[in-house]
Protein backbone atom coordinates (compact mmCIF):
# COMPACT_ATOMS: atom_id res chain seq x y z
CA UNK A 1 0.00 0.00 0.00
CA UNK A 2 1.48 3.31 -1.06
CA UNK A 3 1.78 6.08 1.45
CA UNK A 4 -0.93 8.00 -0.39
CA UNK A 5 -3.24 5.01 -0.01
CA UNK A 6 -2.29 4.65 3.63
CA UNK A 7 -3.16 8.31 4.07
CA UNK A 8 -6.43 7.88 2.24
CA UNK A 9 -7.50 4.96 4.36
CA UNK A 10 -6.43 6.75 7.53
CA UNK A 11 -8.55 9.73 6.51
CA UNK A 12 -11.42 7.50 5.47
CA UNK A 13 -11.36 5.70 8.81
CA UNK A 14 -11.35 8.77 11.03
CA UNK A 15 -14.13 10.34 8.98
CA UNK A 16 -16.22 7.20 8.75
CA UNK A 17 -15.79 6.40 12.43
CA UNK A 18 -16.85 9.94 13.24
CA UNK A 19 -13.63 10.61 15.13
CA UNK A 20 -13.26 13.74 13.07
CA UNK A 21 -15.64 15.76 10.96
CA UNK A 22 -13.03 17.12 8.58
CA UNK A 23 -9.69 16.13 7.13
CA UNK A 24 -7.15 18.63 5.88
CA UNK A 25 -4.72 17.03 3.46
CA UNK A 26 -3.29 17.33 0.00
CA UNK A 27 -4.73 16.68 -3.42
CA UNK A 28 -3.57 17.09 -6.97
CA UNK A 29 -5.02 20.01 -8.90
CA UNK A 30 -4.81 21.05 -12.56
CA UNK A 31 -1.42 20.80 -14.30
CA UNK A 32 -0.50 18.19 -11.68
CA UNK A 33 -0.08 20.83 -9.04
CA UNK A 34 -0.39 19.63 -5.46
CA UNK A 35 -2.59 21.74 -3.22
CA UNK A 36 -4.45 21.65 0.07
CA UNK A 37 -7.58 19.53 0.19
CA UNK A 38 -10.27 19.95 2.79
CA UNK A 39 -12.68 17.02 2.84
CA UNK A 40 -15.65 16.23 5.02
CA UNK A 41 -16.86 12.88 3.64
CA UNK A 42 -15.17 9.47 3.70
CA UNK A 43 -15.73 8.97 -0.02
CA UNK A 44 -13.69 12.10 -0.72
CA UNK A 45 -10.66 10.50 0.90
CA UNK A 46 -9.58 8.98 -2.42
CA UNK A 47 -8.59 12.49 -3.54
CA UNK A 48 -5.83 12.70 -0.98
CA UNK A 49 -2.24 12.30 -2.08
CA UNK A 50 1.18 12.36 -0.50
CA UNK A 51 4.30 13.29 -2.41
CA UNK A 52 7.43 15.37 -2.19
CA UNK A 53 5.38 18.31 -3.43
CA UNK A 54 3.14 18.58 -0.36
CA UNK A 55 5.01 21.62 0.79
CA UNK A 56 2.06 23.64 2.07
CA UNK A 57 1.79 24.04 5.81
CA UNK A 58 -1.80 23.02 6.34
CA UNK A 59 -1.93 24.10 9.97
CA UNK A 60 -2.79 27.55 8.64
CA UNK A 61 -6.29 26.14 8.14
CA UNK A 62 -6.63 24.60 11.60
CA UNK A 63 -7.81 27.53 13.64
CA UNK A 64 -10.22 28.76 10.98
CA UNK A 65 -11.54 25.25 10.40
CA UNK A 66 -12.12 24.66 14.10
CA UNK A 67 -13.87 27.97 14.60
CA UNK A 68 -15.93 27.47 11.45
CA UNK A 69 -14.72 30.88 10.27
CA UNK A 70 -13.72 29.83 6.80
CA UNK A 71 -15.38 27.88 4.05
CA UNK A 72 -18.61 29.78 3.91
CA UNK A 73 -20.11 31.49 0.92
CA UNK A 74 -23.03 32.90 2.83
CA UNK A 75 -23.28 34.58 6.18
CA UNK A 76 -25.15 31.70 7.80
CA UNK A 77 -22.82 30.34 10.42
CA UNK A 78 -22.05 26.65 10.05
CA UNK A 79 -21.40 24.52 13.11
CA UNK A 80 -17.62 24.12 13.28
CA UNK A 81 -16.28 20.56 13.30
CA UNK A 82 -15.53 19.29 16.78
CA UNK A 83 -12.33 17.61 15.68
CA UNK A 84 -10.22 17.96 12.60
CA UNK A 85 -7.66 15.58 11.17
CA UNK A 86 -4.70 17.20 9.52
CA UNK A 87 -1.75 15.87 7.57
CA UNK A 88 1.47 17.21 9.02
CA UNK A 89 5.12 17.17 8.16
CA UNK A 90 7.64 17.59 11.00
CA UNK A 91 7.81 21.34 10.44
CA UNK A 92 4.04 21.67 10.31
CA UNK A 93 3.63 19.62 13.46
CA UNK A 94 5.78 22.10 15.33
CA UNK A 95 3.30 24.77 14.31
CA UNK A 96 0.60 22.74 16.06
CA UNK A 97 2.64 22.87 19.25
CA UNK A 98 3.03 26.63 19.01
CA UNK A 99 -0.68 27.12 18.39
CA UNK A 100 -1.52 24.80 21.26
CA UNK A 101 0.69 26.84 23.56
CA UNK A 102 -1.14 29.92 22.36
CA UNK A 103 -4.53 28.43 23.18
CA UNK A 104 -5.74 28.56 19.59
CA UNK A 105 -7.29 25.13 20.01
CA UNK A 106 -6.90 22.12 22.25
CA UNK A 107 -4.96 18.98 21.47
CA UNK A 108 -8.15 16.94 21.56
CA UNK A 109 -9.54 18.94 18.66
CA UNK A 110 -6.73 17.85 16.39
CA UNK A 111 -6.02 14.45 14.94
CA UNK A 112 -2.57 14.73 13.45
CA UNK A 113 -1.72 12.37 10.61
CA UNK A 114 2.04 12.58 10.81
CA UNK A 115 4.12 11.92 7.72
CA UNK A 116 7.66 10.67 7.90
CA UNK A 117 9.19 13.40 5.77
CA UNK A 118 12.13 13.10 3.44
CA UNK A 119 12.01 16.68 2.36
CA UNK A 120 9.99 18.63 -0.15
CA UNK A 121 11.01 19.27 -3.73
CA UNK A 122 11.96 22.59 -5.22
CA UNK A 123 9.71 23.83 -7.99
CA UNK A 124 7.14 21.95 -10.02
CA UNK A 125 6.46 18.29 -10.66
CA UNK A 126 7.12 19.08 -14.29
CA UNK A 127 10.73 19.57 -13.33
CA UNK A 128 10.64 16.32 -11.41
CA UNK A 129 13.62 14.55 -12.99
CA UNK A 130 16.13 17.21 -12.02
CA UNK A 131 14.10 18.41 -9.07
CA UNK A 132 16.16 19.04 -5.96
CA UNK A 133 15.05 19.29 -2.36
CA UNK A 134 14.11 22.72 -1.11
CA UNK A 135 16.94 24.47 0.68
CA UNK A 136 15.02 24.45 3.95
CA UNK A 137 14.66 20.68 3.71
CA UNK A 138 18.36 20.27 3.10
CA UNK A 139 18.95 22.21 6.30
CA UNK A 140 16.33 20.23 8.21
CA UNK A 141 17.23 17.20 10.30
CA UNK A 142 13.78 16.24 11.45
CA UNK A 143 11.99 13.42 9.77
CA UNK A 144 9.24 12.54 12.24
CA UNK A 145 6.55 15.04 13.33
CA UNK A 146 6.79 15.99 17.00
CA UNK A 147 3.01 15.92 17.10
CA UNK A 148 1.16 13.03 15.52
CA UNK A 149 -1.62 10.63 16.34
CA UNK A 150 -0.68 8.27 13.57
CA UNK A 151 2.62 8.13 11.74
CA UNK A 152 2.65 7.14 8.09
CA UNK A 153 5.76 6.17 6.14
CA UNK A 154 9.12 4.93 7.29
CA UNK A 155 11.42 7.48 8.84
CA UNK A 156 14.71 7.02 6.96
CA UNK A 157 17.30 5.39 9.18
CA UNK A 158 20.27 7.34 7.93
CA UNK A 159 19.93 11.11 7.73
CA UNK A 160 21.92 13.12 5.22
CA UNK A 161 24.21 15.72 6.73
CA UNK A 162 22.25 18.93 7.33
CA UNK A 163 23.54 21.69 5.10
CA UNK A 164 24.68 24.99 6.61
CA UNK A 165 22.58 28.05 5.96
CA UNK A 166 24.76 29.71 3.34
CA UNK A 167 22.25 32.35 2.35
CA UNK A 168 21.89 33.45 5.97
CA UNK A 169 25.63 33.47 6.52
CA UNK A 170 26.08 35.42 3.31
CA UNK A 171 23.73 38.21 4.36
CA UNK A 172 25.14 38.29 7.88
CA UNK A 173 28.61 38.74 6.50
CA UNK A 174 27.71 41.73 4.36
CA UNK A 175 28.90 45.10 5.67
CA UNK A 176 25.99 46.95 7.31
CA UNK A 177 25.59 49.46 4.49
CA UNK A 178 25.33 46.71 1.90
CA UNK A 179 23.03 44.70 4.13
CA UNK A 180 20.73 47.68 4.40
CA UNK A 181 20.85 48.22 0.64
CA UNK A 182 20.19 44.54 0.02
CA UNK A 183 17.15 44.46 2.26
CA UNK A 184 15.77 47.70 0.93
CA UNK A 185 15.98 46.37 -2.60
CA UNK A 186 14.18 43.25 -1.47
CA UNK A 187 11.49 45.03 0.49
CA UNK A 188 11.04 47.51 -2.32
CA UNK A 189 9.77 44.71 -4.54
CA UNK A 190 7.04 43.89 -2.03
CA UNK A 191 3.56 44.65 -3.35
CA UNK A 192 1.95 44.19 0.05
CA UNK A 193 -0.26 41.39 -1.11
CA UNK A 194 0.22 39.86 2.36
CA UNK A 195 0.36 36.37 0.94
CA UNK A 196 3.26 35.73 3.30
CA UNK A 197 1.11 36.63 6.27
CA UNK A 198 -1.98 34.83 5.10
CA UNK A 199 -0.03 31.65 4.44
CA UNK A 200 1.55 31.73 7.90
CA UNK A 201 -0.06 29.58 10.60
CA UNK A 202 1.35 31.89 13.26
CA UNK A 203 -0.06 35.05 11.70
CA UNK A 204 -3.50 34.59 13.17
CA UNK A 205 -4.31 38.01 14.54
CA UNK A 206 -7.88 39.05 13.80
CA UNK A 207 -6.60 42.07 11.95
CA UNK A 208 -2.90 42.45 11.38
CA UNK A 209 -1.26 45.13 13.48
CA UNK A 210 0.32 46.49 10.32
CA UNK A 211 -2.97 46.82 8.52
CA UNK A 212 -5.11 48.62 11.02
CA UNK A 213 -7.46 51.25 9.67
CA UNK A 214 -5.80 53.93 11.75
CA UNK A 215 -2.38 53.30 10.15
CA UNK A 216 -0.95 53.84 13.59
CA UNK A 217 2.00 51.51 13.12
CA UNK A 218 2.58 51.65 9.41
CA UNK A 219 1.09 53.59 6.58
CA UNK A 220 -0.60 52.15 3.54
CA UNK A 221 1.91 53.80 1.23
CA UNK A 222 3.89 51.48 -1.02
CA UNK A 223 7.20 52.96 0.05
CA UNK A 224 10.17 50.80 1.04
CA UNK A 225 10.12 52.02 4.63
CA UNK A 226 6.51 50.97 5.20
CA UNK A 227 7.18 47.62 3.64
CA UNK A 228 10.32 47.15 5.71
CA UNK A 229 8.44 47.99 8.86
CA UNK A 230 5.85 45.39 8.00
CA UNK A 231 8.37 42.68 7.29
CA UNK A 232 10.60 43.40 10.27
CA UNK A 233 7.58 43.76 12.52
CA UNK A 234 6.20 40.48 11.31
CA UNK A 235 9.57 38.81 11.83
CA UNK A 236 9.61 40.14 15.38
CA UNK A 237 6.17 38.75 16.04
CA UNK A 238 7.40 35.39 14.83
CA UNK A 239 10.46 35.40 17.08
CA UNK A 240 10.38 32.17 19.03
CA UNK A 241 7.24 31.13 17.16
CA UNK A 242 8.37 30.59 13.58
CA UNK A 243 8.76 26.90 12.85
CA UNK A 244 10.59 27.47 9.59
CA UNK A 245 8.02 26.00 7.20
CA UNK A 246 9.05 28.80 4.87
CA UNK A 247 5.57 29.17 3.42
CA UNK A 248 5.92 32.95 3.54
CA UNK A 249 8.87 32.80 1.21
CA UNK A 250 7.34 30.18 -1.02
CA UNK A 251 4.14 32.10 -1.67
CA UNK A 252 5.85 35.43 -2.23
CA UNK A 253 5.34 36.31 -5.91
CA UNK A 254 8.22 38.76 -5.74
CA UNK A 255 10.78 36.30 -4.44
CA UNK A 256 11.60 38.23 -1.30
CA UNK A 257 13.77 36.06 0.97
CA UNK A 258 11.49 36.56 3.96
CA UNK A 259 12.68 33.27 5.42
CA UNK A 260 16.08 34.80 6.12
CA UNK A 261 14.56 37.19 8.64
CA UNK A 262 12.74 34.41 10.45
CA UNK A 263 15.72 32.09 10.42
CA UNK A 264 17.98 34.81 11.75
CA UNK A 265 15.65 35.50 14.67
CA UNK A 266 15.04 31.81 15.26
CA UNK A 267 18.78 31.35 15.65
CA UNK A 268 19.02 34.39 17.91
CA UNK A 269 16.23 33.10 20.11
CA UNK A 270 17.81 29.69 20.31
CA UNK A 271 21.22 31.07 21.18
CA UNK A 272 19.86 33.60 23.69
CA UNK A 273 17.09 31.58 25.31
CA UNK A 274 17.73 28.03 24.17
CA UNK A 275 14.25 27.84 22.75
CA UNK A 276 13.25 26.14 19.50
CA UNK A 277 9.74 26.93 18.40
CA UNK A 278 7.26 24.11 18.55
CA UNK A 279 9.43 21.38 20.00
CA UNK A 280 7.05 21.43 22.94
CA UNK A 281 3.74 23.23 23.35
CA UNK A 282 5.28 26.17 25.18
CA UNK A 283 4.98 29.90 24.61
CA UNK A 284 7.75 31.85 23.01
CA UNK A 285 10.20 32.78 25.78
CA UNK A 286 10.23 36.37 24.63
CA UNK A 287 7.70 37.49 27.22
CA UNK A 288 9.07 35.32 29.99
CA UNK A 289 11.37 35.91 32.93
CA UNK A 290 15.13 35.92 32.77
CA UNK A 291 16.75 32.80 34.14
CA UNK A 292 18.69 33.12 37.38
CA UNK A 293 22.06 33.41 35.69
CA UNK A 294 20.75 35.84 33.08
CA UNK A 295 19.35 38.09 35.77
CA UNK A 296 22.61 38.07 37.69
CA UNK A 297 23.76 41.73 37.54
Amino acid at each position, binding site marked *: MSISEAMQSAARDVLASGQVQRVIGYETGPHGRVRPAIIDRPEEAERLVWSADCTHNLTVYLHRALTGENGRASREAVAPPARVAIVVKPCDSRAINVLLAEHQFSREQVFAIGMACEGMRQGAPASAPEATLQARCLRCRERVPVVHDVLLGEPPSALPEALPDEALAHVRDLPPAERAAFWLSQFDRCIRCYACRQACPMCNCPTCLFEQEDALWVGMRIAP*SEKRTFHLGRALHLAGRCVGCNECERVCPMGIPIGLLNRHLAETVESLYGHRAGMQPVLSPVTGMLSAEE*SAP
Partner: protein
Amino acid sequence: MYEPKVIGFLCTWCSYTGADSAGTSRLKTPWNLRAVRVPCSGRVAPELILRAFDQGADGVLVLGCHIGECHYDSGNHRAAKRIPLLLSILEFAGMQPERLRLDWVSASEGDRYARIVSEFVDALRPLGPNTWRINGAAPRADAAIGMPLPAASGLSGGAPCP
Protein backbone atom coordinates in the same frame (compact mmCIF):
# COMPACT_ATOMS: atom_id res chain seq x y z
CA MET B 1 27.63 70.10 13.28
CA TYR B 2 25.44 67.02 13.22
CA GLU B 3 23.59 66.26 16.41
CA PRO B 4 21.87 62.87 16.79
CA LYS B 5 18.18 62.79 17.57
CA VAL B 6 17.70 60.37 20.41
CA ILE B 7 14.50 58.99 21.86
CA GLY B 8 14.80 57.77 25.43
CA PHE B 9 12.18 55.48 26.88
CA LEU B 10 12.52 56.00 30.62
CA CYS B 11 10.67 53.96 33.19
CA THR B 12 8.92 56.30 35.54
CA TRP B 13 10.16 54.74 38.78
CA CYS B 14 13.86 54.30 38.23
CA SER B 15 15.41 55.82 35.17
CA TYR B 16 13.03 58.76 34.87
CA THR B 17 13.64 59.61 38.50
CA GLY B 18 17.29 58.92 37.82
CA ALA B 19 17.21 61.52 35.09
CA ASP B 20 15.49 63.79 37.56
CA SER B 21 18.23 63.35 40.11
CA ALA B 22 20.81 63.88 37.38
CA GLY B 23 19.13 67.20 36.78
CA THR B 24 18.78 68.18 40.40
CA SER B 25 22.43 67.36 41.00
CA ARG B 26 23.24 69.63 38.04
CA LEU B 27 24.92 66.87 36.05
CA LYS B 28 25.60 67.71 32.44
CA THR B 29 23.60 65.44 30.15
CA PRO B 30 23.41 65.76 26.36
CA TRP B 31 20.34 67.61 25.19
CA ASN B 32 19.92 65.19 22.29
CA LEU B 33 17.75 62.83 24.29
CA ARG B 34 14.02 63.37 24.20
CA ALA B 35 12.50 61.42 27.06
CA VAL B 36 9.32 59.42 26.66
CA ARG B 37 8.11 58.39 30.09
CA VAL B 38 6.68 54.91 30.42
CA PRO B 39 5.57 53.16 33.60
CA CYS B 40 8.03 50.33 33.10
CA SER B 41 10.63 49.28 30.59
CA GLY B 42 8.40 46.27 30.05
CA ARG B 43 5.88 48.63 28.48
CA VAL B 44 8.26 49.48 25.66
CA ALA B 45 6.99 47.37 22.80
CA PRO B 46 9.60 46.66 20.15
CA GLU B 47 7.15 48.05 17.61
CA LEU B 48 7.38 51.42 19.37
CA ILE B 49 11.13 51.47 18.89
CA LEU B 50 10.73 50.43 15.28
CA ARG B 51 8.26 53.30 14.91
CA ALA B 52 10.74 55.73 16.46
CA PHE B 53 13.38 54.78 13.91
CA ASP B 54 10.85 55.02 11.09
CA GLN B 55 10.04 58.52 12.29
CA GLY B 56 13.67 59.48 11.99
CA ALA B 57 15.25 58.82 15.35
CA ASP B 58 19.02 58.44 15.15
CA GLY B 59 19.09 56.38 18.31
CA VAL B 60 16.77 54.86 20.86
CA LEU B 61 17.78 54.38 24.46
CA VAL B 62 15.63 52.23 26.72
CA LEU B 63 16.33 52.62 30.41
CA GLY B 64 14.69 50.62 33.18
CA CYS B 65 15.22 49.61 36.76
CA HIS B 66 18.06 47.27 37.50
CA ILE B 67 17.14 43.62 37.25
CA GLY B 68 15.73 42.59 40.59
CA GLU B 69 14.68 46.13 41.46
CA CYS B 70 11.80 46.49 39.05
CA HIS B 71 9.01 48.45 40.64
CA TYR B 72 6.72 45.95 38.97
CA ASP B 73 8.60 42.92 40.20
CA SER B 74 9.80 41.70 36.82
CA GLY B 75 8.60 44.01 34.08
CA ASN B 76 12.17 44.82 33.15
CA HIS B 77 12.83 41.12 32.64
CA ARG B 78 10.51 41.29 29.68
CA ALA B 79 12.33 44.25 28.23
CA ALA B 80 15.59 42.41 28.71
CA LYS B 81 14.14 39.52 26.76
CA ARG B 82 12.59 41.40 23.86
CA ILE B 83 14.92 44.22 23.07
CA PRO B 84 17.92 42.06 22.24
CA LEU B 85 15.77 40.41 19.60
CA LEU B 86 14.77 43.74 18.13
CA LEU B 87 18.41 44.80 18.11
CA SER B 88 19.34 41.55 16.42
CA ILE B 89 16.80 41.94 13.62
CA LEU B 90 17.59 45.62 13.13
CA GLU B 91 21.26 44.84 12.85
CA PHE B 92 20.44 42.05 10.44
CA ALA B 93 18.47 44.52 8.39
CA GLY B 94 21.50 46.77 8.21
CA MET B 95 21.20 49.23 11.07
CA GLN B 96 24.24 49.96 13.20
CA PRO B 97 23.74 48.25 16.58
CA GLU B 98 24.99 51.36 18.37
CA ARG B 99 21.68 53.01 17.62
CA LEU B 100 19.68 50.93 20.09
CA ARG B 101 20.66 50.33 23.68
CA LEU B 102 18.93 48.87 26.72
CA ASP B 103 20.36 49.66 30.12
CA TRP B 104 19.44 50.04 33.75
CA VAL B 105 19.45 53.15 35.89
CA SER B 106 18.06 53.31 39.38
CA ALA B 107 16.35 56.35 40.88
CA SER B 108 19.44 57.34 42.79
CA GLU B 109 21.90 56.92 39.94
CA GLY B 110 21.80 60.35 38.39
CA ASP B 111 25.50 60.06 37.60
CA ARG B 112 25.00 56.74 35.89
CA TYR B 113 22.14 58.18 33.90
CA ALA B 114 24.26 61.09 32.71
CA ARG B 115 27.12 58.75 31.86
CA ILE B 116 25.00 56.34 29.84
CA VAL B 117 23.29 59.07 27.87
CA SER B 118 26.59 60.79 27.07
CA GLU B 119 28.20 57.50 26.06
CA PHE B 120 25.25 56.72 23.86
CA VAL B 121 25.18 60.08 22.12
CA ASP B 122 28.95 60.10 21.69
CA ALA B 123 28.73 56.69 20.08
CA LEU B 124 26.07 57.99 17.68
CA ARG B 125 27.85 61.11 16.44
CA PRO B 126 30.50 59.35 14.36
CA LEU B 127 27.78 57.22 12.72
CA GLY B 128 26.16 60.30 11.23
CA PRO B 129 22.45 60.65 10.57
CA ASN B 130 20.40 57.48 10.51
CA THR B 131 19.68 56.47 6.95
CA TRP B 132 16.91 54.24 8.19
CA ARG B 133 14.16 56.66 7.31
CA ILE B 134 13.98 56.51 3.54
CA ASN B 135 12.00 58.74 1.29
CA GLY B 136 11.04 57.63 -2.16
CA ALA B 137 11.96 54.37 -3.75
CA ALA B 138 15.13 52.59 -2.80
CA PRO B 139 17.76 51.76 -5.42
CA ARG B 140 17.03 48.43 -7.04
CA ALA B 141 20.32 47.01 -5.93
CA ASP B 142 19.83 43.27 -5.88
CA ALA B 143 21.82 42.89 -9.09
CA ALA B 144 24.71 44.30 -7.08
CA ILE B 145 24.32 41.67 -4.39
CA GLY B 146 25.72 38.50 -5.91
CA MET B 147 23.92 36.14 -3.58
CA PRO B 148 22.05 32.94 -4.29
CA LEU B 149 18.52 34.22 -3.96
CA PRO B 150 15.84 31.57 -4.09
CA ALA B 151 13.97 31.64 -7.37
CA ALA B 152 10.64 33.35 -7.01
CA SER B 153 7.75 31.00 -6.68
CA GLY B 154 8.16 31.71 -10.33
CA LEU B 155 5.21 33.48 -11.78
CA SER B 156 7.44 34.27 -14.71
CA GLY B 157 7.41 31.54 -17.34
CA GLY B 158 4.48 30.02 -15.54
CA ALA B 159 6.56 27.78 -13.32
CA PRO B 160 3.85 26.93 -10.83
CA CYS B 161 4.22 26.79 -7.11
CA PRO B 162 5.18 24.23 -6.18
